[in-house]
């Protein structure tokens, strides 16, 4: 089981690095969401601002934009490297058919002669589906979530 979960997370990271946005969105359940809070220890995405808080519709809008020929902030495009590590299955999430996975995540981004690195703790809630998994939600708590950013385009 752990090996299948690892494979899911590695594949997710690779899809982002390969800019396969549609395949990445398809990992999510229809009611799935992707959340990157702008403050530590958030419990409710409607309490404070978020760096990303995308349902599938918004993910699609955002990622269609990444495919748009005139997305100036990505001309030239970023290259990214997502590194997933410290994968651990939560033993506290006790819902039939669901697995909560903790991991640590680093993303290196290179654009216009500048390399930037981001790091944080990730959580994936996986739902068993058709012998595999779908992503109910993914949450990334960046260590610099309430810091000063430069523009971001690629999901962590």
């Amino acid at each position: 089981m752990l090996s299948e979960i690892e494979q899911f997370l590695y594949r997710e990271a690779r899809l982002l690095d390969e800019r396969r946005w549609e395949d990445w969105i398809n990992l999510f359940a229809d009611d799935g969401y992707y959340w990157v809070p702008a403050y530590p220890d958030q419990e409710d995405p409607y309490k404070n601002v978020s760096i990303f808080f995308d349902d599938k519709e918004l993910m699609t809008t955002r990622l269609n934009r990444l495919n748009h020929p005139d997305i100036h902030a990505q001309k030239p495009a970023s290259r990214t490297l997502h590194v997933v590590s410290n994968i651990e299955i939560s033993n506290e999430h006790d819902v039939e058919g669901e697995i909560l996975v903790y991991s640590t995540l680093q993303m290196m981004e290179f654009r216009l002669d500048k390399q930037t690195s981001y790091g944080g703790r990730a959580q994936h809630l996986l739902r068993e589906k058709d012998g595999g998994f779908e992503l109910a939600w993914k949450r990334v708590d960046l260590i610099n979530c309430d810091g000063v950013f430069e523009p971001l385009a690629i999901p962590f």
Partner: protein
Amino acid sequence: MTSLSNEHLRTLVQPDRVHRDFYIDPDVFDLEMDRIFGKIWLFVGHTSQVPNPGDYITTTVARQPVIMSRHRDGEVHVMFNRCTHRGAQVCLEQFGNTKRFECPYHAWVFHTDGRFAGAPYPKGYEDGFLKKEKLDLVKLPRTEIYRGFVFSSLSTDGPEVDEFLGPMKDHIDAFCDRAPDGEVEACAGMFRYRYAGNWKLQMENQTDVYHIMFTHVSTTDDDGKQFRREGAEEDEAGKVKVLADNQSLSEQWEELPLGGHRHGHVFMGRFAMDKANQGPVYDRYKAAMEESYGDQAEENMTVRTHNSIFYPHWSIQHLTQHIRVMNPISVDCTENVIIPLKLKGAPEEMWQASLRSNNNSHSPSGMVMSDDMEVWVRCHEGLKTQSTDWVVLARGMDEKYSGDNQGSYDSKGTSESGARNQQLAWVDLMCGES
């Protein structure tokens, strides 16, 4: 300090163009910090960021670290974040609640209104020294609050805040009066990000209608409309029509009202939306507004402006509901702070939609801001070239001055009048004539 003469400064700003040094010369920047940011009213924060006694935020105003705090008597204070002993900043948390500020160096303590509260081992000082010496945290020379918006000036001289804001006070009123409770609340934190470009590039962009359909074209769907920016999920809400139905430039942009007043303040009219906001949540909002304002409710609910840009460094965006503060860090670095504002008394669903909209458009990953920042950085880099000295701002030279004593003018469409009006204020301030 630099020795740029007024004569030289005046040559940088021509009626229909500005010299590249206006944006890229570090000496000009230093002088701006002194003569613009060091003189006039700056935005510090909103009182709702410190709702309870002992609440504080730390922030930066014109490169000066400051604390805005609410004392136990309810008064809000703005003071420099600098211990009066040896100079250390007394607090580095972005926000919090405290009884007193304590310096980490020698544990000097200060009340939340800035008053000196004591130093350890006082016997080391001559009798009466600690009482006689002025040891309170130093307040910014002037602070005024208007409907919760906190303004400070680094100078003791200059016009009062009422006079400085002039007709722009109506824009603050219009925003607050959209709330059934007549108040807005900054209760969702803020975004902070930086771009490697001059602060004025962004100030001038904010009433630049000309760029919208080009810079932001990647935010549009196949019908030329932008993603949703307002209205509760349960309701029907309009989308901004960035392109016309035939994917060409939309004539509606050429009719968009623009305007401004003396002191460099400018504004832009509300964008054309594809449909009106309506539905069950909006009906509840309308009912709450009618209860508060009666016959005036409909007028208060009518949003006429997209944004109101207060010289030199902040704006209200009425569509997604936020304050934007543009803090100059250096000649080629500007820090943005985006503070979403809740309309107090309006349905919670509307606030949730506004928060989402702020996330989508104006967070560090915001689909609107990221292309803007890309462009400003490219401008700053491009202006460093020796190719030509001038930036051309000759579009729509059609300002119609009303002749009032507020320097008010009307303009419209893709005119670059907003940038020109800010530049008039720049010359006055930089040459000491405002």
